[in-house]
């Protein structure tokens, strides 16, 4: 089959050819899609389980605790036990809630990350869809999630949920701008919106090093804005446990609650993956210019490992934020966006354009 851990494109093409030969080309395509979809569903489930476990362990380390230790060795089966518990819990509903929207909301929240994850290049050739407007698509799709949050808050018929949903709406709509602009800063450098091209363009060094000052500023803005977009602390105003009990998902229980929970973690993965792809070269190993022996040595580590190393580093950073900082207030958060991040971002794009025009990057 031509399987290689370093380059998946032959392997994928062979499978595709095999399916097209065995069945008709159309049926082969459809079967291929189903296989990919199943893979992604499995991956998302696994991702949710492992990220919840990692988050709990990392949080425990920050707080001088051990974290889950009981179920399985070092508590590794804790999240499995939690999911089983959530599945068997009664799905409660408030009396006058809008039943249709109430049940719809968790799925809408879940759709956004599932649609976005298909664009992520996990390794060379290991990418489900490769649009030439990849970044644009991811940004557009990931804002669907806010609809789900608004619906959840509205249909719960709970005042706390409604406040949480309204906060979330204001938050995501404004922080979207900063995410897009910070990503565009790198697009100015790489000259393409296609994710595979952006990764390929970092063969001689990651953009965060080659783009120096403007790229680092863009990365900081991206991390801050995307933390806010994923409703994670210190921007978890929509949940705001100490103010609104649980915000928009106060009234959800059982598996519907699990969907919100899962969506948060998959969103976090997507943010980390996009950040890693745009700023840190995705699956591209660490290359420094044309130093042959160094680049060859780095190439020995498979690209998949590089990708997941970078993603975990960014996820760790996000967790570090969440477990260190107090929460902002809603108006301060909007001030941060409109008075600080957005002007800085626009100045940064200008700076980046000058850098690109004068060829002042590495």
């Amino acid at each position, binding site marked *: 089959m031509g399987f290689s851990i370093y380059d998946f494109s032959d392997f994928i093409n062979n499978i595709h050819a095999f399916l097209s030969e065995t069945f008709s080309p159309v049926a082969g395509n459809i079967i291929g899609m189903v296989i990919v979809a199943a893979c992604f569903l499995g991956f998302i489930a696994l991702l949710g389980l492992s990220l919840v476990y990692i988050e709990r362990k990392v949080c425990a*380390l920050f707080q001088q605790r051990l974290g889950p230790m009981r179920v399985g060795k070092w508590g590794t089966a804790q999240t499995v036990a939690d999911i089983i518990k959530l599945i068997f819990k009664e799905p409660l509903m408030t009396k006058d809630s809008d039943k249709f929207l109430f049940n719809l909301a968790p799925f809408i929240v879940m759709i956004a990350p599932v649609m976005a994850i298909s664009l992520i290049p996990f390794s060379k050739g290991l990418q489900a869809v490769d649009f030439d407007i990849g970044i644009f698509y991811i940004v557009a799709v990931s804002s669907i999630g806010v609809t789900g949050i608004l619906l959840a808050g509205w249909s719960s018929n709970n005042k706390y949920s409604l406040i949480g949903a309204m906060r979330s709406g204001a938050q995501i709509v404004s922080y979207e701008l900063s995410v897009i602009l910070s990503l565009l800063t790198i697009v100015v450098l790489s000259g393409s919106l296609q994710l595979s091209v952006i990764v390929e363009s970092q063969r001689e060094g990651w953009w965060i090093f080659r783009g120096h000052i403007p790229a680092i500023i863009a990365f900081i803005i991206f991390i801050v804005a995307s933390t806010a977009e994923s409703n994670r602390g210190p921007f978890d105003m929509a949940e705001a446990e100490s103010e609104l009990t649980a915000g928009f998902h106060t009234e959800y229980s059982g598996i519907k609650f699990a969907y919100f929970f899962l969506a948060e973690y998959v969103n976090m993965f997507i943010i980390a993956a996009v950040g890693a792809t745009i700023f840190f070269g995705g699956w591209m190993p660490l290359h420094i210019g044309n130093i042959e022996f160094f680049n060859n040595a780095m190439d020995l580590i498979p690209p998949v490992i590089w990708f997941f190393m970078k993603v975990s580093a960014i996820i760790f950073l996000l967790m570090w934020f969440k477990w260190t*900082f107090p929460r902002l207030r809603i108006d301060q958060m909007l001030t941060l966006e409109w008075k600080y991040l957005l002007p800085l971002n626009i100045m940064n794009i200008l700076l980046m354009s000058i850098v690109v025009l004068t060829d002042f990057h590495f």
Partner: protein
Amino acid sequence: MLSSIKKYFSDIYNGVKSLFTGMKVTGHYVTHPSEIITQQYPENRDTLKMFERFRGEVVLIHDENNEHKCTGCSACELACPNGTIEIISDKAIDEETGKPKKIIDTFVYHLQMCTFCNLCILACPTDAIKMAQTYEHSVFDRSELTKVLNKPGSKIMQGIK
């Protein structure tokens, strides 16, 4: 104008710097797992030792001959603010003098009502009762918390009045 721009950027700088100061503190603990303070409770039962003054529950001290020092004077019963202790006493004849005297029949202790204030221990004139260092008091039925402290067949020590 220039000063306000300067202030704008110095605000950003100071803000980001203060955030990094906080992250340094939490980061320190991630890199120092030896400072973890969790005690894994049910596992460390064997090594977990309470301080000697810890108030777990009231016990009546019995020696190896199954004898205790309680005269049934009910000073502890009076000292208790919550009616935790009930002493049901009996009349008996003193073997030496032949006079009637009071002995305890049952020393009832309601653990569910006890606030562990230690007043009964202070009140006891013969030091017959003390606080034990037990700490696992959960039971399935509330009635199990009502305890009889004098052991079956026990009697008062010689020479305790």
